[in-house]
């Protein structure tokens, strides 16, 4: 039996599952970490990114540029959304949830009315290669690499830039940050735009892997939300990474043995167990461990 | 130490990120004692109360109620064991009437006490509150709102009362009225622990005073001992 190939294949599955969860959830987590708001229009933002990339691609724009374009377009839309709608619901998390759901309904059906039920698909760029009995998609390897890159980029933004410093200050203590001269309104808008842009970029990146339809965002809703619940809001990056890895570690074996649907069910069960044991998510637990180590 | 402590904290510690809110706190409240806890702002007084009640879990240490370790008992469980707490920011139900406030309060710690009607009227009578008006509690004058919250807690029939700055915002008259009521309650057998800033109040009611500073117990003793100490005055004036 091709043991090496099997091991590599399982690792590959693990990495692709983790990358999928991370990319699907990162936009949501960025917003949640800053404003404690769950953006229920997240799936539709991803759809918007996919549509932008598809339209651009079919006009001859190279795919990588199309992805960047998606980021920009959806980020701008996100900024608009924050300014007009979401801003009024700070401090009212459940209200924000409901209102973003209203937005998602409008976006989803609006797209159906404007563009019709189908869009021409994008075929997966770059082919696949084989290792023994197992084949691997180059594109997914790229996605895994991009997921890592995005995390590193976000780490750099939050830890090494002035914006990141102000953002972290605002996350910890908005009143204090304001007193120190930080324009928290602009930070919120920028963060929402960043989260939206990431959602759009993820949607664009996933576009070649699925069919492009107005309600395509819905397939990402369940995995993204579970990832966010397990990760928690205490630390955006730690939560995103820790959660994706943990959930992939559950989904990969279950999915391989029992099938994709039961894999997703296992994710929900994992989330229920995690919140029972760590109500504030993995990131809160990791944060506590890190603090204890600093003290010693 | 002859009488065993009814409420005890052993080596309690709590951090919030980089802030040490409590460190190595050892406290022993005797039954029927009237204790005042004083200390400058940020000394950790409210945190201590939250730890004693179960709102926060300590990073280290134990809380004992009548000798029983209740550190892992949830807040509502400790209330059912006889603890009562009022908050630094008034937490009566501002949108509900006095009657509704007390009705909810009398049925709370139901495992402990019986005769809700009796406790309802008792709670009303303690501060002379009038339950006939249907107006929301937030329209009450501030001192009555404070009294309402204390009455609510009393309506549950507790043995131990933890009051976090009950006279904040009250006039000297109202403060003294509150002091007299607390003394009366203490005479009926209640153990009372009060966090306070008002020295006149402390002088009036306290049997024992504990001074908190930077999350640690700085000093403990009678009113006379504590008020005579130079170093206590220093920490209040911010020189220490």
């Amino acid at each position: 039996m091709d043991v090496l190939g099997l091991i590599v294949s399982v690792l590959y599955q693990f990495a692709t599952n983790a990358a999928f969860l991370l990319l699907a959830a990162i936009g949501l987590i960025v917003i949640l970490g800053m404003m404690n708001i769950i953006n229920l229009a997240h799936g539709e933002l991803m759809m918007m990114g996919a549509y932008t990339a598809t339209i651009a691609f079919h006009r001859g724009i190279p795919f990588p540029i199309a992805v960047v374009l998606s980021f920009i377009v959806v980020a701008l839309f996100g900024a608009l959304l924050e300014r007009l709608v979401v801003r009024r619901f700070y401090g009212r998390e459940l209200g924000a949830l409901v209102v973003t759901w209203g937005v998602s309904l409008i976006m989803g059906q609006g797209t159906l009315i404007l563009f019709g039920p189908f869009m021409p698909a994008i075929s997966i760029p770059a082919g696949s290669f084989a290792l023994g009995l197992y084949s691997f998609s180059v594109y997914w390897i790229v996605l895994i690499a991009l997921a890592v890159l995005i995390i590193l980029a976000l780490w750099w933004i939050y830890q090494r830039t002035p914006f990141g410093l102000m953002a972290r200050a605002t996350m910890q203590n908005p009143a204090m940050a304001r007193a120190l001269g930080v324009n928290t309104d602009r930070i919120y808008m920028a963060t929402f735009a960043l989260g939206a842009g990431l959602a759009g970029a993820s949607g664009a990146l996933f576009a070649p892997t699925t069919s492009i339809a107005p309600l395509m965002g819905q397939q990402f809703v369940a995995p993204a939300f579970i990832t966010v619940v397990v990760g928690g809001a205490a630390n955006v990056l730690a939560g995103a990474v820790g959660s994706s890895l943990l959930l992939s570690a559950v989904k990969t074996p279950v999915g391989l043995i029992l099938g994709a649907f039961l894999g997703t069910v296992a994710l929900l069960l994992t989330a229920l167990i995690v919140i029972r044991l760590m109500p504030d998510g993995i990131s809160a637990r990791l944060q506590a461990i890190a603090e204890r180590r600093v003290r010693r | 130490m002859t009488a065993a402590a009814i409420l005890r904290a052993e080596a309690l510690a709590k951090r919030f990120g980089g802030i040490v809110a409590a460190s190595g706190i050892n406290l022993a409240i005797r039954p029927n004692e009237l204790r005042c806890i004083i200390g400058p702002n940020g000394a950790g007084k409210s945190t201590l109360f939250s730890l004693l009640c179960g709102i926060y879990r300590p990073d280290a240490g134990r809380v004992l109620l009548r000798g029983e370790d209740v550190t892992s008992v949830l807040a509502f469980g400790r209330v059912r064991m006889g603890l009562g707490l009022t908050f630094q920011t008034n937490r009566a139900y501002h949108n509900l009437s006095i009657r509704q406030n007390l009705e909810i309060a009398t049925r709370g710690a139901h495992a402990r006490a019986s005769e809700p009607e009796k406790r309802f009227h008792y709670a009303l009578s303690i501060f002379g509150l009038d339950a006939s008006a249907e107006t929301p509690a937030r329209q009450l004058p501030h001192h009555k709102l404070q009294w309402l919250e204390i009455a609510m807690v009393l309506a549950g029939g507790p043995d131990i009362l933890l009051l976090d700055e009950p006279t904040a915002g009250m006039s000297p008259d109202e403060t003294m009225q509150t002091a007299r009521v607390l003394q009366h309650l203490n005479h009926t057998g209640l153990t009372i622990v009060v966090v306070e800033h008002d020295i006149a109040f402390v002088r009036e009611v306290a049997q024992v005073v504990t001074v908190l500073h930077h999350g640690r117990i700085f000093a403990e003793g009678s009113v006379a001992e504590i008020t005579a100490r130079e170093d206590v005055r220093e920490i209040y004036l911010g020189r220490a």
Partner: protein
Amino acid sequence: MRTLIGLINGPEDIGRSQWFWLLASAVLLVLFLLPLWASEFQSSNIAYYLLNIPMALGLSLLWGYCGVLSFGQVAYFGMAGYAYGVIAGNLAGNTWGPLVGSLGGLAICAATGAIFGYFVFYGRVQNWIVPILTLVFTLLLETFLGQTAGYQWRIGHVQLGGYNGMTGIPSFQLGSEIFFGYPFYYFTLAITLACYLTCRMFVNARYGKVLLAIREDVIRTELLGYDIRACQLGVFVMAAMLSGMSGLLYVQWGNYITPSQVGLFQASLPVIWVAIGGREKLLAVAISTFALNWLNYALSQAGNEYAPVIMGALLLAVMLFFPGGIIVTLAAGRRRRERSRVPISANEEST
């Protein structure tokens, strides 16, 4: 009897004056006499608007009275419907089949709600986790039901039917009386009314007051000795059963059910009805549910694709401009005008 009236006429819902009861009686009379001038088809439509009310009431109890938002109430709607289809379908020919099926449906809702609720409420999670997890649950249910096509997916001899759903579900039956057409309309009216009155008495009763306290200030309520987790779990199970009741009426109305009933769009509807009417008052929710279902039907006659957009826009508008809900805001405004002579006017609007 006096306590019963007191409970129904309590302060926790809209409408206590004589005027109100006069108006309410008139409306009930109209509903009762409807079959005199409405065709069976029209009565059937009205029955459809009515049968969604219990589910909305459950969400109102959970969200408006207790402060817990669930996006997945439709999961219990669907579970009860499918369970009834399976049980009653397998007991076809037995006159008590439908009754057993109904009780089975409600039992499944209660059990599932209890288990799910245990993990969520005893975990003492943050507020936003409940809507997310309940939504995920209903989405997974939809996915599961959607892939149950084929003969191997059956319980007893009732097929689950995959995306096409379950058909041929028996109508409700008590003894030899089969509820169809006009009788079913009365049946639905009776059950909806019973659910509404029960909920109304509940919120005015002592246990209901606890919910109010939890909504006002969770920490204060816990520090009065209440086990918040148990209260929330209790209401969650109630809401699950009320949703199940709507689900049962639905399958008994249409004799079919599909997985889309538990899908994303359907899941949003109860939230929309409750938000638009005003989640903190049961009557507001009952009225808005009826009205919005009527609106949805009217829209679907005119071209279905705009319905979600209009619903979404309506929801947006209400959340932005009438955060307490349209009907609740109107009722509060009316009360304020009535009391404007008295110097102290109680402002009972809440967001």
